């Protein structure tokens, strides 16, 4: 069963800046103050996520909404498994494909074909598996002969086609997306939508961070409203959007 479960998950971010980035300054301060290392209280700590508990079940297409700095990206990273929370339990059942940055793991001087393999490998596929899916991905991206060129020459929309093609071809059970998906042209968005639709009907999970009501209504059936690292509301899209709008005007 594909599912995501969080229990009392908190993420604290120490902000390293200026002096605390420097070993010399850290040690000097220790010398002067008689401490070995900088006291935790001297550091700036941000509570990026504050005791989040939630269950996302198979077939859920969840939109993460909330003002800037609400913790959406941090939550996505916790779900992706890259940030291990300071407190709390995370259980993610299913193969996760994060799709946050279209340029991830790409080598600008390598060709489109090479980069498809490279990115697939970063996403956990063996190079041999990727070669097997090459035709499928190449057909989906519709980049044709551009795939023989270094991706340095690609536009951001073309890069996104490539990234999206690879990310969905690895048949993830859980797809995590940031808003950048919107960079595609109308025609590609239509294709992407069809692909996502078939992906979601395969009773898998989608989590999408977005600021656009339009996108949220179109792609998601549930929404999760985050504010200052706290879970304000999780439920059907319309209810949560209404609550979000109300809190924005309040």
């Amino acid at each position, binding site marked *: 069963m594909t599912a995501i479960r969080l229990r009392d998950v908190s993420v604290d971010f120490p902000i*390293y800046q200026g002096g605390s980035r420097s070993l010399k300054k850290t040690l000097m301060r220790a010398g002067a103050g008689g401490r070995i290392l900088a006291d935790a209280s001297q550091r700036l700590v941000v509570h990026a996520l504050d005791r989040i*508990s939630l269950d996302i079940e198979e077939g859920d297409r969840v939109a993460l909404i909330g003002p800037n700095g609400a913790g959406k990206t941090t939550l996505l990273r916790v779900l*992706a498994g890259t940030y291990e929370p300071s407190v709390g339990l995370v259980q993610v059942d299913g193969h996760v494909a994060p799709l946050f940055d279209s340029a991830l793991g790409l080598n600008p001087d390598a060709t489109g074909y090479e980069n498809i393999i490279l990115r697939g*490998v970063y996403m956990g596929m063996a190079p041999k598996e990727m070669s097997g899916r090459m035709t499928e991905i190449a057909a989906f991206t519709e980049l044709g002969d551009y795939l023989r060129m270094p991706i340095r020459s690609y536009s951001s929309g073309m890069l996104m086609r490539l990234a999206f093609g690879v990310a969905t071809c690895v048949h993830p059970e859980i797809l995590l997306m940031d808003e950048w998906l919107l960079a595609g042209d109308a025609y590609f968005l239509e294709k992407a939508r069809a692909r996502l639709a078939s992906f979601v009907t395969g009773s898998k999970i989608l989590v999408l961070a977005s600021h656009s009501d339009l996108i949220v209504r179109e792609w998601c059936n549930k929404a999760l409203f985050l504010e200052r690292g706290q879970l*304000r*509301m999780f439920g059907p899209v319309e209810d949560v959007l209404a*609550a979000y709008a109300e809190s924005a005007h309040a």
Partner: protein
Amino acid sequence: MISLDVSERAALQPVALGRPASPRARATHDLVEGLLRWWLWGLVAWCDIKQRYRGSVLGPFWLTLSTAVMIGSLGALYSRLFHMDLATYLPYLSLGILTWGLISALLTECCTAFISAEHVIKQIRMPLSVHLYRVIARNVIVFGHNLVVFVVVALWFEVRVGWADLLVVPGMALLMLGMIPTGLILAAVCARFRDIPPVVASLLQVIFFMTPIMWRPELLGSNIDLALYNPFNCFIDLVRAPLLGEGVPMTSWAVALGMTAASWLVAFPFFARFRARIAYWV
């Protein structure tokens, strides 16, 4: 105003979540799982090398060429300074400089192993050790390129080749085994404290002159222990001595083994303690 969150939280099903594995178990898993993904770090390291070939005919051989020039000119000068026969001095010097080049490049580049992989670390879950293995693999490939210089020198001066040369294989293996924990500490500490890489770079410069690379340990006379117990000399010996047809001194094996064990003893608990924080540091 909005009080729905309470009722939403109450709707959570009582699911028993397994306790996460201990930090040590996860650190071990990271190191082993990372190693097993050889196709990942191998491919990325290979791409790094291909990157150097693009736009230049010689590619990494540029580095080989500059190493060759350095070895040739240093060899001509220092063989006179030290009154040594070029036929014995040049093979010694070239292997010393090549192996030192590998060690110092590894130590320098391990410092940025995690920093330069920041985007990947923040976005995709994969063993952190993968980024370290990538740096090691890349530098071993470059070392392979540079070894051409020694092959030319060896052919020119007719250095004798024998079965004992194969001792270089366990020697290289031990060098790598010692590099992993050292690189792990450097990569993690440098992610946290950004002023360390320049410190490492300037220390390496000092160490280069303190280590018998351009000079032979015997020149120290009664202070020869300074060279024999220098861990850098011992690791270089593991590669240099077998290829020169000399036996590797027992002290070199002992010190190298000891250093490797010691760095694992420090690096493993350190990595277990801080592994989860590295994503927040980069």
